[in-house]
């Protein structure tokens, strides 16, 4: 137990810091993923088959390929790409990109693919009559988008977004392979140096459970708040 104490002797504070790191990466990935999803949703809803094809290709590929492979692609691929650019400018040698950035980017891409599907479904769930009604009231363009479409899309998509958040939290465990010190990586380091993998893996499991349970509660409250008058 004293292995988990705070301060210099134990690993408690390191684990907590790693937990914050997981939370930070997940939040960045989620925000990035949701923003990235918007153009893909618009492409899926457009009438052009080229745009539809591109968006479908993106979501199918990212959702069909193991997350670990996607992380390998960007982790190894990005430093190779940057080293190539640097070599043009005469800089030879190994360049490593910030692991936090790459991690948030990879998980963000995965999140974007799933969010695209959720948001598209939510947009489609808004009855067409509402658009017609708002047109007949003279509400068009940006006012219709921000006043009618987006608020409802978010309300309908909220449970789906909650699921994606859980997925994002768990997917960040995979970016420990890039060396970012989040919960999984810290667990590996701590169990390696203390030879107590059981203790630290249980701790890691509990930290993840706390994160998922609390965010679940949060989404439940949000859902109840925003679905008032609908159920």
């Amino acid at each position: 137990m004293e292995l988990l104490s705070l301060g210099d002797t134990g690993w408690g504070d390191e684990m907590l810091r790693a937990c914050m790191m997981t939370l930070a990466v997940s939040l960045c990935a989620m925000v990035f993923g949701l923003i990235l999803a918007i153009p893909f949703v618009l492409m899926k809803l457009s009438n052009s088959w080229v745009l539809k094809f591109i968006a479908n290709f993106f979501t199918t590929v990212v959702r069909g390929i193991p997350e670990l492979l996607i992380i390998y692609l960007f982790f190894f691929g990005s430093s190779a790409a940057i080293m190539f650019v640097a070599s043009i400018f005469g800089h030879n040698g190994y360049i490593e990109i910030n692991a936090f950035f790459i991690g948030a980017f990879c998980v963000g891409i995965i999140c974007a693919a799933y969010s695209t599907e959720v948001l598209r479904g939510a947009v489609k769930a808004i009855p067409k009559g509402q658009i017609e009604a708002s047109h007949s009231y003279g509400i068009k363009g940006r006012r219709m988008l921000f006043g009618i479409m987006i608020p409802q899309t978010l309300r309908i998509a909220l449970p789906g977004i909650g699921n994606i958040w859980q997925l994002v939290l768990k997917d960040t465990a995979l970016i420990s392979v890039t060396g970012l010190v989040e919960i999984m990586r810290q667990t590996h380091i701590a169990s390696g140096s203390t030879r107590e993998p059981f203790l630290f893996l249980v701790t890691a499991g509990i930290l993840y459970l706390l994160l998922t349970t609390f965010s679940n509660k949060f989404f439940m409250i949000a859902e109840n708040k925003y679905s008032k008058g609908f159920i």
Partner: protein
Amino acid sequence: MNFNLIYESFLDILKGLGASLEIIILSLFLGLLLSVGIVMMRLTKNIILNSFSRSFVFVIRGTPLLVQIYFIYYGLAQFTAIRESFIWIVLKEPFWCGVLALTINTSAYTSEIIRSGLNSIIKGQAESAVAFGMNKFQAFKRILLPQAIRQSIPAYSNEIILMIKASSLVSVITIMEMTGIARKIISKTFAPIEVFIAAGIIYLALNYLVTVIFKKIEKKYTISY
């Protein structure tokens, strides 16, 4: 883009297909069996069994698969009692550790799928089956289970695809399945894009196959009322 390299790594990664499929099929099969047990425990009125099943599903669904794999591979091996017991025959092999972790993981998700399938059946059906003179077990076997399976088919095909993706994680405990081989080629050639394309094609093909097969099965078992 080096097409030759894509082709070569495609052939190399294909050698891991057998190992991947073995792990996926074994753990799906064992997971399905385990999940039926978990659902039955969840449906009993026995508080101990019921809360065990609840907390099992809660813990497995709330933690990343990577934690579960490491827990079985590194965590359990820490204790000499386990290393000296008969379980060690299974746990000393990375392959069986991977299968065990995936089995436990999929059983939790599958049990929720089956449970929601059962919940979707109108309660009156079970009651009328009993009124027709069936006992509870017969009603479960003849009336509830077949309908629950039919309800669960679409969600279960999703779970299979998730398992195909999840099987890539066992490469972190030294199993040389497709992702493990891909990783090895990447670190040898420093050509992540080519290797990604080669591995991606195989995974996408597998998932596509599952989707097509399950569309057929769904069509066969959905009856129009």
